């Protein structure tokens, strides 16, 4: 199975992964895994705070991922004020 992992806001992985043309990680696995297992495999420099699975914010990291899923990981961030 293959999923795409996008890292933002200074999150980086210590490991080498296959990447697509946009620079996102293509992560392959054979057994079904959860989001927290995926995050562990990735060996990230920072703990992700906001985890988005196919555009939905996920609070339960025991959620399983499946073929073609898109996972986006963010550290704590904010913004939004004008000027």
């Amino acid at each position: 199975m293959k999923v795409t992992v996008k890292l933002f806001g200074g999150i980086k992985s210590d490991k080498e992964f296959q990447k697509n043309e946009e620079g996102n990680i293509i992560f392959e696995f054979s057994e079904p895994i959860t989001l927290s297992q995926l995050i562990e495999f990735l060996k990230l420099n920072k703990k992700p705070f906001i985890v988005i699975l196919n555009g939905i914010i996920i609070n339960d990291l025991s959620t399983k991922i499946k073929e073609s899923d898109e996972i986006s990981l963010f550290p704590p961030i904010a913004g939004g004020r004008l000027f």
Partner: protein
Amino acid sequence: MKILRINMNEDAPVAKFEDLGDYQGLGGRAITSAIISKEVDPLCHPLSADNKLVIACGLLGGTAAAMSGRVSVGCKSPLTGGIKEANAGGQAGQVMGRLGIAAIVLEGKPKGEDTYKIYISKDGVKIEKDNTIKMLPNYELVEKMKKEFGEKIACVSIGPAGEMKLSGASVAITDMELRPTRHAGRGGVGAVMGSKGIKVIVLDDAGTTPRQPKDAEAFKDANKRFVAGLQKHPVTGQGLPAYGTNVLTNIINEVGAYPTYNFKEGRFAGARKISGEVEAELEKQRGGNPTHGCHRGCVIRCSGIYHDKDGNYLTKQPEYETVWALGGNCGIDDIDKIAMMDFLCDNYGVDTIEMGATIGVAMEAGLLKWGDADGAINLLHEIGKGSYLGRIIGNGAAFTGKAFGVERVPVVKGQALPAYDPRAIQGIGVTYATSPMGADHTAGYSIALNVLKTGGFVDPLKPEGQVDLSRNLQIATAFIDSTGMCLFIAFALLDQPDTNQALVDMINAFYGWNMKDTDVVEYGKKVLKFERDFNIRAGFTKQHDRLPRFFYKEPIPPHNTVFMVKDEELDQLFNW
């Protein structure tokens, strides 16, 4: 602290200092909204002598409190026809506070076509006719003021758009480098300043000292706890300083709430190219600076300095909403061109959000193609030239939509929606619909809980809980906007009760008050009540507290949701 009233009705304008009187205990948004609500005829024409423009520092303006330099600019808005408080950073708030001025109230209207400048120092107020500054863009104007009054001033000014009294015109405030980069952008406040014939207010705090607290020890201690709290929180201590507000581009895009092509889609293919991460990297490479405060005393420093390809100053770091409006919303993914547009908006004195939304509407009308950055830049130059087309654009999205017969116009109460689609983030839709300001994300920034998970989490795709969320945020925001504090402190306040307490302690120590949490809530409600009450008297009904119909009818990809909060629920927002 005093109120400084400047009456432009007379043959020679008159300046008069007054005690705070009934306005004692009010600052920032509380005092601008109280004055407008009590003193301005809600049915007046916004550009008439009966309207007033109030420029106020916050309760803690001019003190040693960190983050306390924000300015509120209030009036009856020419864009919405309702009350307006537009909030800005920059140096003016601190300087006003040190000069002992809680609010400057511009009243009346001059008879002729002359342009005035006002100089305020500890020695008094000078009001002078100066037609050599007529129609100068903001940057040139400030250079001229520097030559005349020295480098230690702060300027509050309008560009040509304000002088032409366009509804998208902003009031510019200079930053620490004395550049006119911080704008009270929304609602056409610049047009009201223009209608008073006043081009610039120069504030000079030479020879003044910070305002002194009643209880100096307790104040110092509370300020220390407050700053430590901001530095400890991951958002105010790390996220905002590193990337600024534009770090939101990627996350709002990933959750499918990034309005693209005039609110047709929720994701933009070019988002990464214009994200805060890319912006910060470019700023470092080109000798700009991604971590910079918009005023002295800011410890978060979300702002930055943006240099062009040759390493020369171009503009301040464009904010997320600016990059969205003039970028993704128009299908533009060239960050340098967006930065150029940010500069042009600041220079001509127009609101970047309103202009981006307007250009999106112009693209919808077929006036130019989606993604045409040079065409968009030209449209902004038209405003500077004062051409008929420029005047249409400078009057905002609703006006431009009418001029070109466009149906899809993203406005509430005449003001353009900012950078978060209310179909994918339902909470912000409640704020857009109900805020007395018109569509304004800052009025109740639900994104904090709907997406960023500060202070909790409320599912953005469901209608449940959004009215309560928006109500609580609108109340808290009305209070923070009155203190002179930058709203960004809210990220730390929402998560850390002790930082929240430190802020209340600081105000209590300064004024000798005994405010509790419940008083903070009552304070916020009082401000909203002034505003809501003014709008009702100006003719606003519950039907004005709605989003444009297409948000209820057209699902937005990728989630294919519409705005689902019911009208009856929206009507409960102010029933507390």
